[in-house]
């Protein structure tokens, strides 16, 4: 297999973009990616998206977007893996280029969520879970995470406020990200007084949905310009766990994160001590905690300590959510995995301004689909 590099990135601001359609925002991200890569076209298009069929009445997104962006006639597909659709699409494009089958690909993640009523979006998000045995019982996607968080707090004795540093850090970093949905800081008091969504998860534990798209342009490493802006994919792995939380051997362990990160570390010849920046999947604060534990940054049950010990901000030992994370950058579901990758590229290029991590050599992104059922881990290095 050939090594693959990212030579261009693009993203849109995340928000309630009622004036723009799904293809408008996907196009926006792709055109800035082409400009950044100084290319006019790629051989194939891979689209990460979860819900276009349910909430936009539009499938066949490969052809739909290839047509829109002027890649007439080119190979194109949508890849769906719930909230991990973005990273799954990236890995699909990566494998196509690495195999030698094609020499260039655009991967775009896009989700257009705010055209629908909130309860319909809630129902569409719940399709990431088991329809027969979870959703039919009335549990929402937030509800599943709340069940995990409650049990976690019970087993390890953490208080709700112990999770606050994750949300506070995410918001503090999003202030400096012009693409973030929530560019405001929050205090501990705001965190504590936020309205309950599904206890113990309140509004400040949960990431906001939004409309957004992010994209990358990938080529074989030996065709990438050596201008200090190319980034090499050093590790890429995906794993799955049971679709239902209740079927897990241990509902408090992200087994698919453990499996995928282990492979990605091995491919990159690295380990947790060498990761300089980590964009993790903080759809809910409990997911940030479980991800840190699964990736070897904290012992089991000790994830909240990294936040409480002030290690997760851009100058800390393990900077996370440096552009706002899902919590404050926003979580346009199928686009999120691409936003994470774009942000790691920005860190490796040194483009992050106030939240730039110093001396970044290795960055990692982890994208979680469902309540832990599909997890992809990617590791990137500067060229």
């Amino acid at each position, binding site marked *: 297999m050939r090594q693959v590099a990212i030579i261009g990135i693009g993203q849109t601001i995340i928000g309630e973009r009622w004036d723009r359609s799904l293809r408008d925002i996907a196009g926006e991200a792709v055109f800035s990616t082409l400009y950044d890569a100084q290319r006019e076209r790629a051989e194939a298009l891979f689209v990460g998206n979860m819900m276009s069929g349910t909430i936009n009445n539009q499938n066949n997104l490969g052809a739909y977007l290839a047509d829109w962006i002027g890649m007439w006639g080119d190979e194109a597909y949508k890849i769906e893996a719930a909230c991990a659709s973005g990273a799954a699409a990236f890995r699909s494009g990566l494998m196509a280029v690495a195999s030698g089958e094609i020499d260039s690909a655009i991967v775009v993640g896009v989700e257009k969520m705010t055209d629908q009523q909130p*309860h319909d979006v*809630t129902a569409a998000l719940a399709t990431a879970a088991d329809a027969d045995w979870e959703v039919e019982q*009335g*549990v929402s996607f937030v509800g599943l995470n709340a*069940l995990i968080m*409650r049990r976690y707090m*019970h087993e390890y004795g953490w208080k709700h406020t112990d999770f606050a540093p994750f949300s506070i850090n995410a918001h503090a970093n999003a202030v400096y990200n012009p693409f973030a949905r929530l560019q405001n800081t929050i205090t501990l008091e705001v965190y504590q007084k936020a309205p309950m969504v599904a*206890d*113990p998860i309140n509004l400040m534990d949960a990431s906001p949905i939004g409309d957004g798209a992010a994209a990358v342009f990938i080529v074989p490493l030996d065709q990438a310009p050596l201008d200090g802006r190319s980034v090499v994919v050093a590790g890429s792995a995906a794993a799955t766990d049971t679709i239902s939380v*209740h079927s897990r051997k241990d509902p408090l362990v992200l087994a698919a994160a453990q499996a995928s990160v282990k492979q990605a570390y091995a491919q990159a010849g690295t380990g947790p001590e060498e990761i300089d920046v980590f964009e993790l999947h903080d759809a809910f604060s409990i997911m940030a905690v479980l991800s840190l534990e699964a990736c070897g940054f904290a012992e089991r049950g000790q994830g909240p300590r990294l936040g409480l010990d002030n290690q997760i901000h851009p100058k800390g030992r393990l900077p996370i959510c440096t552009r706002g994370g899902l919590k404050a950058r926003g979580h346009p579901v199928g686009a999120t995995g691409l936003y994470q990758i774009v942000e790691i590229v920005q860190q490796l290029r040194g483009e992050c301004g106030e939240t730039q991590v110093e001396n970044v050599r290795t960055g990692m992104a982890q994208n979680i689909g469902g309540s832990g059922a599909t997890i992809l881990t990617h590791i990137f290095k500067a060229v």
Partner: protein
Amino acid sequence: MEIARHWRLKKQRYGLVGEVCPHCEAKIFPPRDICPSCGQEARDLYQFSGRGEVYSYTTIYQAPSGFDETAPYTVALVKLDEGPIITAQLTDLEDDKVEIGMPVEMVTRKLRTDGDERGLLVYGYKFRPFQNIPQKNEALPH
């Protein structure tokens, strides 16, 4: 409306009928073709007792469409006495404060209406605080 889908699951939803693995004797709910404990084929039916305890719980305030009319309601992970954990709503709570470890038992209740107000009524299991009253004495709920 997905009439066939609900009909297909009636034994499990109304009777809590799962499986026991003929190879390793693991009790399995919901039923599946491959035993999650030993990886071999599992097809033998098994009647669960309907008793268990609360493993975790939450209250749903923002319900998915179809469940709006009953929100807020409490959903739990229930660890059945026979081993498996299942997702189910808690009901008949009245003044009982829900706690992890609380003993509960299965009852049959309406889960939701599938479709509009003239749609199919979907019934299934929920769990209530353990009362030790035989199920057959219970009047069919709304």
